């Protein structure tokens, strides 16, 4: 299986677990999407550092785009890449983040470390 195929599968599994196994329904909640919007912005930065500086490289036979060049940075945008990283990394990141947040909420709903709760921000009290 390619990275592309595993990425799509991982997102599907994460969504199914969120909806039907953990029953946390994170994907239906505004709180999740607001959090994810913030997370994905920073993912593009850190991922860009990983791939732009060639700490991690990718094989063109596993992704939509081409193989990472040997000694220069891959394209910043285009050839199946965004912020140097393969677009597949968005699938990888989404499934990792959704599973983590879903499980975190799952345990909270089950009463595990429900407290101390978050907030309020320092400047409000």
């Amino acid at each position: 299986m390619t990275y592309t195929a595993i990425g799509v599968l991982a997102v599907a599994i994460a969504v199914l677990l969120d909806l039907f196994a953990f029953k946390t329904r994170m994907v239906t909640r505004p709180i999740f999407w607001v959090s994810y919007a913030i997370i994905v912005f920073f993912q593009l930065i850190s991922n860009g550092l990983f791939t732009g500086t060639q700490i991690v490289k990718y094989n063109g036979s596993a992704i939509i785009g081409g193989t990472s060049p040997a000694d220069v940075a891959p394209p910043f945008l285009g050839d199946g890449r965004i912020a140097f990283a393969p677009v597949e990394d968005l699938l990888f990141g989404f499934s990792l983040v959704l599973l983590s947040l879903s499980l975190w909420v799952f345990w909270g709903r089950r009463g595990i470390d429900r407290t101390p709760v978050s907030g309020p921000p320092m400047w409000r009290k």
Partner: protein
Amino acid sequence: MRYFAVKPDMGSEVWSTLIIGNYGAVEDFMDFGRWSYVAVLIFVILGSIWLEVFLRTRVLRRPKRLLLTIAPVLLPFLVWDAYAISQGHWYFTESRILGVYLPAGIPLDELLFFIVIPFAAILTLEAVRSFKGTQSARWQVGDEVS
């Protein structure tokens, strides 16, 4: 230190210049040798840990829940990582990772990644909850204390 010009035909020249200025080349940007990978993780931690203080997210004060979340998610992703590495989907510049490997050739850096990223994600979720409050049903997730 190498100073390659970023090849125009890679399409990244303009963007790279916008991001890192005239530093020279993307691959020399943030070069911390063997600590390069870990440096990015430290960047992620610094970018999110302040939420614990200023938004009072109190994630570290819920260690059992944190462990029960990170550990089970870590396992399937390490399996994925091991498979991807064995198939050559992705590979690492060995001079830029710690050089310590887990079974199946997984760099230790990757294990740290699967701890740091979920932690930062949870901090973000709890920061949004801190900011929005949990009074309104719209922002609830079902673990609220009434």
